[in-house]
């Protein structure tokens, strides 16, 4: 490190001693205004921190969904073509063909609100009002059989809403799994014989090469 920052540290220490407010070591950048923070600080957490004022019903959500979401995600979240599936898949997670949706997989409802609010609809993010997003979140709950048609979601009742799969997530424990053994690997005669059990060409899913 150059001497320059050290000098600044010394200067800072001096200014701290004289009682000036801490303003950072390098005095670069400027303080954000509260309007600026509000404009960008849209994230929402499971405990409800970050939720805006507002509310929306399932039926209002259905209207917006039909208009702005169904063309990709299907009328009931079943998806059109290969666009993401939003509803269904309950009890499929341990099967050979798991279907991960808000209802079957997502642990927290706040994630739906946050994601739809920041990233959907796909071609026009940030165009929905808070009431729209509450309504769409309520509709997504409804098509996942979590609430009735007459349900209304609001900032006030948001934190009470739980998604069924929350308890099935656990933190990274790879280092305690058997494949993580820190053992000296075998170098010779490690298995009696070797045979080919599967070939990629059989599945034939490799994209065509230009030079073919």
């Amino acid at each position, binding site marked *: 490190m150059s001497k320059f920052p050290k000098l600044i540290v010394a200067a800072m220490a001096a200014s701290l001693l004289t009682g000036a407010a801490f303003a*950072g070591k390098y005095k670069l950048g400027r303080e954000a205004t509260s309007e600026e923070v509000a404009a960008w600080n849209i994230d929402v957490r499971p405990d409800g921190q970050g939720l805006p004022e507002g509310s929306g019903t399932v039926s209002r959500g259905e209207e917006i969904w039909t208009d702005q979401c169904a063309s990709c995600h299907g009328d009931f979240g079943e998806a059109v073509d290969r666009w993401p599936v939003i509803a269904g898949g309950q009890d499929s997670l341990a099967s050979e063909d798991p279907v991960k949706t808000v209802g079957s997989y997502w*642990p927290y409802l706040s994630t739906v609100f946050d994601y739809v609010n920041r990233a959907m609809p796909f071609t026009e993010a940030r165009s929905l009002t808070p009431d729209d997003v509450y309504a769409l979140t309520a509709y997504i709950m409804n098509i996942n059989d979590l609430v009735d048609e007459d349900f209304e979601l609001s900032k006030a009742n948001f934190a009470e809403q739980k998604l069924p799969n929350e308890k099935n997530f656990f933190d990274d424990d790879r280092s305690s799994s058997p494949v993580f053994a820190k053992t000296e690997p075998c170098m010779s005669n490690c298995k009696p014989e070797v045979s080919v059990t599967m070939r990629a060409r059989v599945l034939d899913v490799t994209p065509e090469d230009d030079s073919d």
Partner: protein
Amino acid sequence: MVRDMTTDSPTDNSKLQARRSFLRGGLAIGGAAAAAAATSGAALANGDPNILELKDWNQYPGDGVDARPYGAPSEFEEHVQRKSVPWLTADPISSVNFTPLHELDGIITPNGLCFERHHSGIAEVDPSEHRLMINGLVDKQLVFTMEDLMRFPRKNQINFLECAANSGMEWRGAQLNGCQFTHGMIHNVMYTGVPLKTLLEEAGLKGNAKWLLPEGADASGMTRSVPIEKALDDCLVAWKMNGEALRPEQGYPLRLVVPGWEGNMWVKWLRRIEVGDKPWHHREETSKYTDLMANGKARRFTWEMDVKSVITNPSPQAPLKHDKGFTVLSGVAWSGRGKVSRVDVSLDGGRNWQAARIDGPSIDKSMHRFYFDFDWDGSELLLQSRAIDSEGYVQPTKDALRAVRGENSIYHNNGIQTWHIKKDGTVENVEVS
């Protein structure tokens, strides 16, 4: 220059050579083929025409300086490109393409070949309009311009970025013929930027600051929760890659570098870092980037990329083009937990192993290059590589991984890859017992 590259033969693609082709008459065959014929002994009486005949480039001056103010690779390298697998995703705007690992050597990935993964396309950000905000649990919420950021003390760091879904298509068995597709969601770049720690200290962390939420300026508003320990350890807020400005598709003008951790966390077009006391559990760390186990439960916050390696040459897109004899096997290895201390290579599908030679710099959380120089006897081979990192972790077999994870994980497949080399030198992606 735009050129239609429909064949590998340089002769067919050179207008200069075309001009002289009448001189060669019946000998106007591909230059590479002619050279191969000459050196393999079945040559023309007098020798190789590439030596005997005058070349245009040997006679006529070429382009002067400034004809190519931003240089590009030779036209003969035009096939070296990122490629996608169109059936993988619904739309190229939220999709991925792959680094052509089999065409590269050393440890650095050229900027134009670094794989791309976008969630809402490439944001084209004007750097003069770009701002980085730090808000939340800090003494002073700050806003920086790009110029402000460039006045902080800088650091250079070489790190690999691997998508957690790299090799994800191979969980259920061999699928794609080519290391570009099986392993190409990785690149290795030197970044220049300011340590994230410096910026956080500038804002002043509050005592209960435990998590960060970096956020992108693109239309997906990408967010991930990052624990404070990692942020204060080795993360960088970077604006240069391999010496030049970040490419737009890599987050120009600013991205987060999270060494050794899954690529999704390296937020591109970085515009905001919120400091909080709990994780946010956003879409990319719940719906995505969580690892579903066979019993239906899911592992979350699996940030580190495990020790892994792959043989890049030979591989399905890069077959052996010569008869038996001396040859060079090459590949790359990396670990999100440190350096790669050793790579072993097997020619017989994992029965017997020999240590490969690591060459070039060995850097923490960077790709390493390895070679295994050997005399091919012309027989069929089952090539494998197995990396061991500085923490002592050993790259597992795919079956060992499946035994503990099932086949639904999508992410974090660091299993040993097998390539089947045929007698004719062609190569196939296979799985072995």
